[in-house]
């Protein structure tokens, strides 16, 4: 079947238990080529754990993971790098795959940090480092991108630009993206499929479906519901500068 060939990674009823406590349980999802799947959920709901299960970082899991590609780019949520290593941005870019200069420069330019290429990794600010992490993940032109809050600490305008970039990369490389994001605006506009987690899959589907879901509403509260429902209506009017509403 043609749809099956597009699957990059598939979780079947996957879960992880640590010290007799379930971090996440019964997650089934799949990421296909050219599609963006977003995990949302409150803190501690198992989003990062689910991403790591999909990546094969955890070995002793419940259920199963089927991974159909080894060309993976990963932006972890937390990264602890030991500064006993003399590591420049340039060295970090070729960490898991050898790349030529043009490819490295292109990726660093796309995320706006080409000027930092020869800087020591330890001297970067949080937002700069985040941009380097994203550049590294996309530079190897992966089939599957796993982005765990990829724009944390990035300034506001940068955030929008980076999300646009992520969307563009997904279209251009037709790679699948598993995204973890707290930014509901992005989730609603750029995502193909949303999985709402709270220790288990509380609901999933297209952004619209999830927005209508009552469990989602209970989990995120009325405000989040309103943010999402903004995208539900068709724009049949525009707001003029004077504050009046004008019908199309």
């Amino acid at each position, binding site marked *: 079947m043609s749809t099956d060939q597009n699957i990059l990674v598939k979780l079947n009823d996957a879960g992880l238990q640590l010290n007799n406590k379930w971090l996440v349980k019964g997650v089934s999802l799949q990421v296909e080529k050219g599609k963006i799947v977003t995990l949302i959920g409150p803190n501690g709901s198992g989003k990062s754990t689910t991403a790591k299960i999909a990546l094969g970082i955890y070995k002793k899991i419940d259920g199963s993971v089927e991974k159909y590609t080894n060309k993976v780019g990963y932006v972890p949520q937390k990264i602890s*790098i030991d500064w006993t*290593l003399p*590591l420049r941005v*340039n*060295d970090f870019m070729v*960490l898991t*795959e*050898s790349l030529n200069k043009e490819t490295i420069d292109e990726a660093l330019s796309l995320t706006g940090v080409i000027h930092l290429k020869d800087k*020591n990794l330890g001297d970067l600010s949080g937002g700069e480092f985040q941009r380097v992490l994203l550049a590294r993940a996309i530079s190897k032109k992966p089939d599957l991108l796993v982005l765990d809050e990829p724009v944390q600490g990035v300034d506001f305008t940068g955030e929008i630009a980076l999300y646009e970039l992520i969307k563009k990369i997904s279209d251009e490389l037709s790679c699948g993206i598993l995204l973890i994001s707290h930014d509901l605006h992005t989730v609603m506009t750029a995502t193909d499929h949303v999985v709402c987690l709270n220790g288990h899959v509380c609901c999933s589907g297209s952004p619209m479906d999830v927005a209508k879901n009552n469990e989602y509403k209970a989990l995120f509260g009325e405000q989040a519901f309103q943010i999402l429902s903004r995208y539900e209506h068709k724009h049949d009017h525009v707001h003029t500068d004077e504050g009046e509403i004008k019908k199309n």
Partner: protein
Amino acid sequence: MFDDFFIRALVAGIGVAFVTGPLGCFVIWRRLSYFGDTLAHSALLGVTLAFTMEFNIALSVFIISSLIALILIQLQKKTNLPGDALLGLLAHSSLAVGLVVIGFLTFIRFDIMGLLFGDILAVSVDDLLIIWIGGALILLVLKLIWKPLFASTVNYELAEAEGLNPDRAKAIFTILMAAIIAISIKMVGLLLITGMLIIPAAMARNISSSPQKMVIYSIIGGLLSVIIGLFTSLEFNTSSGPSIITAALLLFILSLFKIKQSIKLKN
């Protein structure tokens, strides 16, 4: 001109320095200096085994050190003791058992000082072959596992997620550690091998801005330490190991001045 034994020691030492340079960098990056110590201390058991069984020293040291590394991994899985306590337990008990066994072997004449601190008089042509062939093999394997090993040193999860198999690289690296200890024990002595791994690499860290540079400087530092140390050893009749390590220490102290400069430049 120099005596044959000195030329042999020099050639052996140079061979050792080429291997300890890059391995030492990983020992520092992965915080394995105490692990290296443990393997080195257990080497004494290997030496006694070699004497009683009339076996090749390097080979038996390699076997015993690998065995101790395996035991360590098992203990880490099975007990709740912290890693450093386990390392201390294995290091000192294997050293103690080794010394006790030597006490029983009254029929063999042992040069304990030579074992602990190295003896340039003891380097034979066979040892040279072991050092250069063994050393070349270690470097070859290290080159093969460099990418996964280095990537997982920087960040384990990134390496695992992007399909580099860091666990395998780590296991192979442990074997390489046992191998370098086995081939350098006669030269530097088992109490000082970790010094030979760490000090040139630490010196290199002070003056380098990239991992590749650190490896190169570490090799150069090791070579200089061996050459200076051995000439000192010949001139003043000191043990070879301590002389080499002292030379390495002097280089390290010199490298501190470079740090001071670069900090000044930054401000």
